[in-house]
């Protein structure tokens, strides 16, 4: 390119071990903070390419800023079982479980994945730091808790071609690795762990490694992935696909019960569409009692997918002489939802889905309005004026391809 402007800069923020590469590839030099790290929002000057890479080719994302903790010891499983809502007892070695965890009032603190690395060894990931909470609740148990956030670097390789790329490098084939399972692997003799997980709702993998191997792994993937269209991808594209996949984001779609300073900001898993993760058969876990009560009386709020009806949206804009105004990025501004002019909910994030050609959002609505197909109104700004436009509660995930879970056989 003809404008290869060079510059060096200085930052007080953390840099991931991939920064050496990502900083050079980031043509837009647009960064966002993620967990105190400098994290690319997009590499290209526009993010479209990255979005389509996730859905049609392969995208490579630096997910090192995730918080990671290792729990190890005879009571590691017991400790996790007390902590999270899902049943860790049935999680086999090599399996991964997505789970939220709650405070004693059954309000969600964070969500993440639990990887069973061994009989007595687990890794748990989370959006925000949770060390204090884990340590507090591990007290009196025979378990050792270590902050693994800086000792493990991680990449996400997501998209329909991701498996093919890994298969060209990995000594073992990934063909039989099932959704939410993981395996140890060697990429050109570099030991890594590969889990079939991700935040895109597509076929994809997450690769966990020693930070000292980070650059080698990056280079290898970029090289071998080239024929498959591998594209370094930033947070803008990720935000769009995670909404399409109906995946919630802490601090956007909900507030951690540990940080919500008022009651009304807290949500239970039931209110976040995660009722399926609450395993009441489990002996005891933090928040169980409160959640039992909530389950019995039914949650006050529910978390749903909504779709903004196209025709009316188009009408609104046509009236002022404009084509339909669609967001070019995923948005995160809480937006009111009404029924008969009374506010009954609010959407917390939304996006135009270029693949689906639908304007979709994730929303908290009062339970009585959460039924599929319920018609509601959404606040829309048309040329500086607020309008109401119809929306419908629809099934989420909005995008859920067969390949996400399937294995070639």
């Amino acid at each position, binding site marked *: 390119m003809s404008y290869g402007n060079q510059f060096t800069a200085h930052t*007080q*923020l*953390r840099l991931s071990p991939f920064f050496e590469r990502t900083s050079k590839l980031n043509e837009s030099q647009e960064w966002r*903070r993620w967990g*105190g790290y400098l994290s690319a929002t997009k590499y290209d000057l526009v993010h479209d390419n990255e979005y389509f890479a996730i859905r049609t080719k392969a995208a490579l994302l630096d997910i090192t800023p995730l918080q990671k903790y290792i729990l190890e010891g005879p009571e590691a499983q017991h400790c996790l079982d007390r902590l999270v809502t899902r049943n860790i007892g049935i999680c086999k070695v090599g399996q991964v479980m997505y789970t939220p965890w709650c405070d004693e009032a059954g309000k969600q603190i964070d969500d993440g994945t639990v990887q069973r690395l061994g009989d007595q060894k687990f890794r748990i990931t989370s959006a925000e*730091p*949770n*060390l*204090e*909470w884990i*340590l507090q609740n591990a007290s009196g148990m025979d378990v050792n808790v270590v*902050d693994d956030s800086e000792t493990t670097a991680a990449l996400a390789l997501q998209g329909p071609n991701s498996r093919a790329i890994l298969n060209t490098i990995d000594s073992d084939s990934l063909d039989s690795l099932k959704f939410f399972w993981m395996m140890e692997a060697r990429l050109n003799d570099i030991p890594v762990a590969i889990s079939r997980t991700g935040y895109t709702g597509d076929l994809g993998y997450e690769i966990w490694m020693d930070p000292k191997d980070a650059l080698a792994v990056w280079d290898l993937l970029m090289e071998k992935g080239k024929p498959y269209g591998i594209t370094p991808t930033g947070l803008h594209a990720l935000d769009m696909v995670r909404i399409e996949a109906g995946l919630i984001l802490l601090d956007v779609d909900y507030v951690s019960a*540990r*940080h919500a*300073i008022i*009651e009304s900001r807290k949500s239970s898993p039931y209110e976040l569409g995660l009722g399926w993760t609450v395993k009441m058969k489990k002996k005891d876990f933090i928040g169980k009692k409160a959640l039992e009560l909530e389950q019995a009386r039914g949650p006050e709020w529910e978390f749903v997918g909504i779709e903004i009806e196209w025709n009316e949206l188009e009408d609104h804009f046509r009236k002022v002489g404009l084509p339909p105004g669609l967001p070019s990025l995923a948005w995160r501004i809480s937006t009111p939802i009404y029924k008969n002019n009374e506010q009954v909910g609010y959407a917390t994030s939304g996006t135009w889905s270029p693949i689906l050609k639908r304007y979709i959002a994730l929303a908290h609505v009062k339970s009585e309005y959460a039924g599929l197909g319920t018609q509601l109104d959404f606040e829309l700004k048309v040329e500086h004026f607020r309008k109401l436009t119809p929306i419908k509660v629809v099934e989420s995930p909005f995008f859920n391809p067969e390949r996400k879970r399937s294995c070639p056989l």
Partner: protein
Amino acid sequence: MSAIKSYDAIVIGGGHNGLTTAAYLARAGKKVLVLERRYVLGGAAVTEEVFPGFKFSVCSYVVSLLKPTIIRELMLPKFGLELLPLESTFTPLDHDYLLRTSDHDQTRREIYRHSPKDAEAYDRFGPLMGQIGMAVRPILETIAPNVIRPSLSDLSATKRLFDHFKALNDEQFEYLTKLMTMSSADFLDEWFEFEPLKATMSASGIIGTFMGPRSPGSAYIMLHHYVGDIDGAFRAWGFQRGGTGAVSMAIARSAKHFGAEIITEAPVEKVIVENGRAVGVALVNGDEYKAEKVISGLDPKLSFLKMVDESDLPSDFVTDIKNFRIRGSSGKVNLALDRLPNFTSLPGDGPHLRGAISISPSYDHLEKAYDDAKYGNFSQEPYIDIILPSVLDPEMAPPGKHIMSCFVQYAPYDIKGGWDDQKREAFGDAVVNTIARFAPNIKDIILHRQVLTPADLESTFGLTEGNIFHGELTLQQLFVMRPAVKWANYKTPITNYYQCGSGTHPGGGITGSPGEMAAKKILRDW
């Protein structure tokens, strides 16, 4: 003797509270006169050019507690109020440091370096204190009821407070109760493990107080300092351009704008009391002024044991005022510097010089400093809260030069053998030596040094025993008991004689609150 002039109200003392009262009364259309003993206004919130070219906020040095309502109602920005934020808190240690800035990620990373657990706790602690600060605000903003003979409005105010506290959730209520009763060290120990962090945070619990961080009651002082508010940002301390005296001057200009008269170098000798009613004041120079109401902005000891005769007061009230605790424990050292200090643990210029620098490496450091004072000595290695105003506002010093403001705990008023020049200098040396432990170049760059002991604070600024808050902020001297039960509502046993200084509810600091609430009470009674 000149003809006796007559006013609606006379305010004794041109401290920032007296000025605030005067401004509010004038704003309500009253004819007001302020009489200040010194040649400058501001009392303990004053800026003076102590050495040629070097201007100092001689006493108070940072502003956070100034009530936003007052800023708006008295239109202070129009009259020169300009608060610049302090960027950081820097705790130098012998081989390391702790630097907290206003950036969340930066601070978290820095604390994480010392303790991962603390980094998380810190994120929850700030908002919690914010909540508790909000929870106590209604008390701070309520005119303390007379609990002995409550009026109807006292009862409704009490009911409102009661309802307010009932509405707090368990957690808030628990922490509030703890903050009212615990030591700051014990309170912080429940949250954090990294000692320099705890010690530095606990230090706001000992400022102006004859207590150590391990003394029960110090947690409240910490909270008192947390209720600060600049632009709604919590615990955001600020520096006033031109020094804290400029805050007082802004209030004075506002008062004048509303029509108040202000006379400096006019020390009041006595309040004239006739038949149990205040009718005016007599100056030291013999001048007399008449007024419908007389309001004292002095501390309770001066207001009641000096300005009026004991015989004009009920004896149990006199006992209460005599028992009112007002021990001074702080000193101030103002340095004119040739250049910036250089800290061994974090050399050179940087954000750490643009905020507060806290010499508080450990609880023990603070406790030992307190131990010295308990037994009648100044601290050999004191706690020092330092700022470099000239870094934020270059006009405070000649070009290229700097000033350093050092607030020091502890310097007891009742020092063994009494304060004299020699002890003052020894105290100044102790402060400089303590700073030199962390910034060795300090000794070479001092051009001038001003040392203020509690005795100096008393003689120069009229602060009895040198107490910076006009009376200790202990549990039994708060709210309905400040300065004495039954008379915590700005009234006094003498009809038409009122009080508005820091010795009244809600206490000391550059808050303007006592002044504002007193004015509102006076206007209500009028």
